[in-house]
């Protein structure tokens, strides 16, 4: 769901047949082919969704006031909209495969540089937030697990539940009201729109402080809870008792033996969440802080009925979701050797 971390557990990777090197290769090829099929189907669905459902005629939108029939026909032809639907769809996919995403129906601007700029802003937001939430979750989750049932644990887990329940856009507004330089009660950080005005990398990072913290809040909570329960479960394994019996220091037992297997579920979650956030779910944070990212780009396109931009961004966003789930599955196998490929 928009902007909030996915709390529903994902299905376990299927375990079957004995995995060896060639089956890994076959698995990767299969997954890649399936990714291509997925992207084609999604593009087709998006095409019909936004073309068939009434969302305004792009030709009329470009033609200006009281256009003549000749002018309408000319624009329709120049946009390729007089071709049958399968040809339009095929052309789009063929061009997209060559990294040409066409032009906006409304502004006529080329879409590739537009989308790459937006991707830069979104990636800047999401990657920074991910670092914040991983750091916060590592500290809070570990302490909570090791001091289970104590006051710090209870306070941390209570706070985590509040953070999960807070809508991210509201948290953003509250943060701006309190801390933004222009309107805040305690103006310490750059406010909304600072990112668009920033020129240096340092300014950009400064403009992102509030968005990073706000976006990371709920994710920190989810990851801290995940790490805590995963650590608690791992600490009861036999090999941990063995490690202790060998006379290893508690520090070494926890950080070298327990943590390594306890982070596995976090890796899975991280891949999925980053993919989904870059794939459009950061839109709520982007709209509160005026960050010109991919979510905003597609949202504006939908509201203007700019089908060309919608189509290109949908394909682009779906690509990130698919790729991240592919990487997660492969990483998972790398970390956890028990996973076999189908």
């Amino acid at each position, binding site marked *: 769901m928009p902007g909030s971390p996915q709390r529903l557990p994902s299905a376990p990777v299927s375990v079957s047949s004995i995995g060896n090197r060639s089956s890994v290769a076959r698995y990767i090829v299969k997954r890649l082919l399936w990714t291509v099929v*997925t992207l084609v189907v999604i593009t087709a669905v998006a095409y019909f*969704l936004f073309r068939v*459902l009434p969302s305004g005629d792009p030709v009329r939108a470009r033609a200006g006031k009281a256009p003549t029939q000749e002018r309408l026909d000319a624009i329709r032809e120049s946009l390729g909209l007089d071709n049958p639907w399968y040809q339009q769809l095929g052309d789009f996919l063929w061009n997209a495969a060559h990294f040409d995403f066409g032009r906006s129906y409304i502004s006529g601007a080329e879409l590739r540089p537009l989308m790459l700029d937006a991707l830069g802003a979104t990636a800047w937001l999401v990657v920074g937030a991910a670092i914040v939430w991983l750091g916060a979750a590592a500290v809070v989750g570990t302490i909570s697990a090791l001091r*289970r*049932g104590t006051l710090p644990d209870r306070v941390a887990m209570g706070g985590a539940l509040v953070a999960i329940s807070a*809508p991210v856009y509201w948290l953003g*507004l509250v943060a701006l009201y309190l801390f933004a330089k222009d309107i805040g009660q305690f103006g310490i950080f750059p406010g909304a729109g600072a990112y668009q005005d920033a020129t240096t990398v340092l300014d950009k990072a400064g403009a992102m402080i509030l968005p990073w913290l706000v976006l990371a809040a709920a994710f920190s909570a989810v990851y801290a809870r995940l790490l805590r*329960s995963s650590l608690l479960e791992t600490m009861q394994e036999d090999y941990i008792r063995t490690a202790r019996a060998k006379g290893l220091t508690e520090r070494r037992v926890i950080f070298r033996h327990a943590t390594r297997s306890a982070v596995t579920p976090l890796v899975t979650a991280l891949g999925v969440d980053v993919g989904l956030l870059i794939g459009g779910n950061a839109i709520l944070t982007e709209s509160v802080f005026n960050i010109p990212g991919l979510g905003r780009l597609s949202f504006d396109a939908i509201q203007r009925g700019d089908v060309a931009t919608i189509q290109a961004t*949908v394909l682009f966003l779906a690509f990130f979701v*698919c790729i991240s789930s592919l990487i997660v599955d492969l990483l998972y196998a790398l970390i956890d050797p028990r996973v076999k490929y189908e």
Partner: protein
Amino acid sequence: MVALAFIVLVILIAIFAPVIVKVMGLDDPNFQNDEALNDFGSPNGPSSAHPFGVDDRGRDVLARVLYGARVSMLVAVIATAVTMIVGTVLGLIAGFYRGKVDAVLSRFTELTLAFPTILLGIGLSVACADACLGGAIKPGLTVVVLVISLTSWPYVARLVRGQVLSLREKEFVDAARSLGASDRRIIFREILPNLTAPLIVYATVLIPQNILAEAALSFLGVGVNPSTPSWGAMISDAISIFDTAWWFMVFPGVALLLAVLAFNIVGDGLQDAINPRTGRTGK
């Protein structure tokens, strides 16, 4: 217990919102009271007549927050029910029949998961702004429920499918089959009852998520009709003036936060009760 009590309170508020507003002597949620605006046309803060202040059009914020519970609860219940039913049925069929049926349904599930959900939501809402598919899908609440269900059923389907795959190999299924039970009877009378516990836990995870989803869609301006008071839409309306009129932004947000928090606490408790191994509360 406090959380459960709060949920009951919110539900009661949702049901009796008109009565409560009358009894408290508040303005109607859509009544634009010019007198509540100051000389410059800006809204006034909390006062005895308007405990939560008024919004930029002079509408009483408390009354709108109370009415906002209606949309939240309605969407939470309907969208969760639709999601659970669709996901459970598809998951049951895929897990029980396996083979080709399962392959098709599983691919379909994966496709849905890869589709940028928020774009689907915004797209459907914008496209259906004046009723689409010949009026079958009306704008507002129906679209919101449709969007939420469309994007969250795959998670339920995947969970159910996994459980059914192992349940269908159990002896009681063989026993039922040897007694001549039909597939339908085995699926719905033998296997489904064994899924009650995980399904209840899942529903309690979904409800707060769906409340947030409705609010998020309304915040983006593609949720319920603008005239209907919704917490998400109120927060969105407050964006232009929240630096001066903090009450307009704070109260609907707090209401949303508390409602979602209450459901999350109850959900966590239920999860611990059903699956005591997780030790989430640390007792």
